[in-house]
């Protein structure tokens, strides 16, 4: 204790003296704090020298190709997005929760506010990592550190925190997530009623080991204690619907989320001595973590949550509770109406101009927006026929087929393996999107980029239909870094009483991969139809800029 480095003068000395005279626990805390301060000072000295090499050794935990792509993706500047923009798909309020999410263990010094959050084990891990870094740098000599000096100073401002859902193979991060879930209860509840942490299932293919892989047969709700007063029942129901695949599709999920939030707001009552605008946001955080655990949030859901949080925090404090609640319910209704319902109408108006008589249109999977467009075009007496392409294991095309045949459109149904066989007779391809990224890439159901690629080879125009609320500021160039892994057991097929791959768990070298999304580059997309009009794929950042100016 007496050997602390740069003391803050007489203040520290008094504290130390006081501590010496008090009980053992306090001194332990003191010791921890002093150790932390020493560490901070040491880190500040070393920061400029060993930043590069310490980062490299810290990232050894993740696979090498992955770490390279992670560094690349965090460095790629997005056009007009400031470096401090919020990180990818905003998970459960993690970036805004400053005390809850300290930066990645090997990058940057922990801020003083994080002190109570760190456990001894994490401190030890950090110290060990830094010692290894020191040893490594001493071995490599000054040449490497001088080389890494220049990029290190470049890396410093650009390195963003990676969201937890893409660091599943890093045990420190998983532990941190568990602690955060514990902490997201309001004080009076006991720890038995916390949000459970869902565990991964089955062997994960190494390229995707940084993502979660859950089993449908073990929904999160089974781990919840009854009665669970932490999570609102409509949210529990919603979570179950998400994880079992009852509610699927970007639009359906966001609208269901907003309806559940409306229910939450209606049943909400401000506790005494609290303000609605602040307390309600805090109440929503555990719900969002819970939903994130049931199924990772989509980009559209992320934008909807951002909007709600903004609306809640903008409620002026002089509003009475009833007024505030009605206002919030109105806002949510308006959002759904504007961004989903009216947008669909506007998009159909533009899209119908592009459908001429005698067209053969190809669609993939089940996109609510594309189905809406085709139904409207049919109502306006356009003569066309549709080819529905489908793929395992979700077989969503069957739902689209059902809807189109019901109103009388003549359809053909093929599996994706027959794509190059049907394409010569196709005149246009209409695709839906899960999200449009800031660099013009289209994120959609797995198989979409394949369709776009083959259509390009046959010179068939590809049109993507997407509402503007699905535009997100994330930048992605591949389908590996951020994706979703579905239940691998879904790939098993039972035919004539025999199930192939029944005992795939026993084979240690066999891995089943059930990807959900993939990313299509903008060169394969000819036109994007949004509610603002028809734009080329490269103009997505312009729309984002215009939208931000409006807000």
């Amino acid at each position: 204790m007496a050997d602390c480095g740069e003391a803050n003068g007489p203040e520290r000395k008094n504290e130390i003296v006081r501590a010496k005279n008090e009980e053992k626990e306090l001194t332990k805390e003191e010791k921890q704090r002093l150790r932390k301060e020493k560490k901070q000072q040491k880190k500040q000295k070393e920061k400029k020298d060993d930043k590069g090499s310490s980062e490299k050794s810290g990232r050894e935990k993740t696979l090498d190709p992955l770490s390279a792509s992670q560094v690349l993706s965090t460095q790629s500047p997005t056009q007009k997005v400031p470096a401090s923009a919020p990180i990818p798909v905003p998970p459960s309020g993690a970036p805004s929760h400053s005390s809850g999410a300290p930066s990645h263990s090997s990058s940057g010094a922990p801020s003083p506010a994080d002190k109570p959050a760190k456990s001894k084990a994490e401190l030890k891990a950090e110290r060990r990592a830094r010692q290894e870094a020191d040893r490594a740098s001493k071995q490599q000599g000054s040449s490497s550190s001088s080389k890494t000096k220049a990029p290190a100073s470049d890396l410093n401002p650009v390195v963003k925190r990676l969201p937890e859902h893409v660091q599943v193979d890093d045990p420190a991060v998983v532990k941190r997530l568990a602690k955060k879930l514990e902490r997201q209860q309001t004080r009076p509840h006991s720890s038995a009623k916390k949000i459970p942490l869902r565990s991964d299932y089955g062997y994960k293919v190494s390229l995707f080991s940084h993502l979660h892989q859950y089993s449908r047969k073990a929904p999160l709700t089974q781990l919840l204690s009854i009665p669970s007063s932490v999570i609102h029942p409509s949210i529990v129901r919603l979570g179950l619907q998400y994880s079992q695949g009852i509610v699927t599709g970007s639009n359906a999920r966001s609208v269901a989320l907003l309806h559940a939030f409306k229910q939450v707001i209606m049943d909400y009552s401000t506790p005494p001595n609290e303000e609605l605008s602040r307390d309600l946001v805090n109440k929503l955080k555990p719900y969002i973590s819970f939903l994130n655990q049931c199924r990772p949030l989509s980009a559209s859901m992320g934008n909807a949550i951002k909007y709600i949080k903004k609306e809640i925090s903008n409620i002026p404090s002089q509003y009475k509770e009833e007024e505030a609640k009605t206002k919030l319910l109105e806002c949510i209704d308006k959002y759904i109406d504007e961004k989903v319902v009216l947008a669909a109408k506007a998009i159909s108006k533009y899209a119908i101009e592009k459908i001429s008589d005698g067209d053969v249109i190809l669609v993939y999977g089940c996109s609510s927006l594309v189905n809406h467009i085709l139904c409207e075009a049919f109502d306006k007496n356009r003569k066309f026929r549709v080819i529905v392409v489908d793929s395992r294991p979700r077989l969503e095309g069957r739902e689209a087929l059902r809807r189109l045949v019901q109103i009388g459109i003549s359809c053909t149904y093929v599996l994706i393996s027959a794509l190059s066989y049907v394409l010569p007779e196709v005149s246009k391809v209409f695709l839906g999107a899960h999200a449009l990224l800031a660099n013009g890439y289209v994120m959609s159901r797995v198989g979409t980029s394949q369709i776009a690629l083959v259509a390009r080879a046959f010179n068939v125009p590809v049109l993507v239909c997407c509402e503007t609320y699905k535009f997100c500021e994330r930048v992605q160039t591949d389908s590996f870094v951020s994706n979703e892994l579905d239940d691998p057991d879904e790939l098993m097929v039972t035919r004539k009483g025999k199930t192939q791959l029944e005992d795939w768990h026993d084979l240690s070298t066999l891995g089943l991969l059930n990807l959900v999304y993939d990313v299509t580059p903008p060169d394969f997309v000819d036109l994007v139809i949004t509610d603002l009009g028809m734009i080329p794929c490269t103009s997505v950042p312009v729309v984002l800029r215009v939208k931000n100016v409006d807000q």
Partner: protein
Amino acid sequence: MLVEDKKQTEQKKYFRTQMRTDPDMASAVAAIRTLLEFLRRDKGETILGLRESLKWATDCLTRVDSSVAVSSGGELFLRFISLTSLEHQDLARCKKVMEERGELFLEKISLSRTKVAKLCHTFIKDGAKILTHSYSRVVLRVLEKAAAEKKRFTVYVTESQPDTAGRQMAEALRRLGVPVTVVLDAAVGYVLEKVDLVIVGAEGVVESGGIINKIGTYQMAVCSKAHNKPFYVVAESFKFVRLYPLNQQDVPDRFKYKADTLNNVSELSKEHPVIDYTPPSLITLLFTDLGVLTPSAVSDELIKLYL
């Protein structure tokens, strides 16, 4: 009905006189002059009525001259003059404001060709061999400026059937003292290995960054891509139009044929189109009075112009 017909014939006469007095003027500029004159003579009582009649006037003009530029110029003119605060109480004062804006717009676009020429002539190096298509006044202006800068270059012009407008271009270039050769439309692939760059004008620039121009441009673009020669387009900003064709078929019929054909002939499928669409992937750069743009930046500029 009679009043409208009278107005229409008056308009057409004014438009044709404008075109005749200054053959060097773009048809869109003549159209905008006509619209300005129409605005001055209009006796409408409301702003909304004024806008409606201006739209009607633009429609009439497109029936005289069906080029894309006339319709795009008309729409941009309407937007430009109403893009100011029209909160005055007096209609006469509003009209005056609109007329002033109209004059300003006309002034701006008459300078646009000079701006384009100033930007583009630096891309023509000494000793260059240039290939161009049909008769374009903007390209002529660019080559004039380059010749004035004492650069030595030779030009190959395609004959451009069915109206052999290429010969007109060759005549104009000979008068400037530039060595020029007229080639057949079919000889574009043959001659491309000799040329260094390709410059063409445009009748309209579409949202995707592609262009609509005299038929034969698309072929030239595909060949120059195959030979890896740069393909430059020169166009003024009033030619930017809110169309998004996906392929040749997708271009609306009202632009594909001349106005006389559209009015007189019943079976359009037997007629030969006079324009074609060149997709943005084949274009290297566009020179406009808004600057030198890549095809993907055109959409950005269009959003700024129209929104």
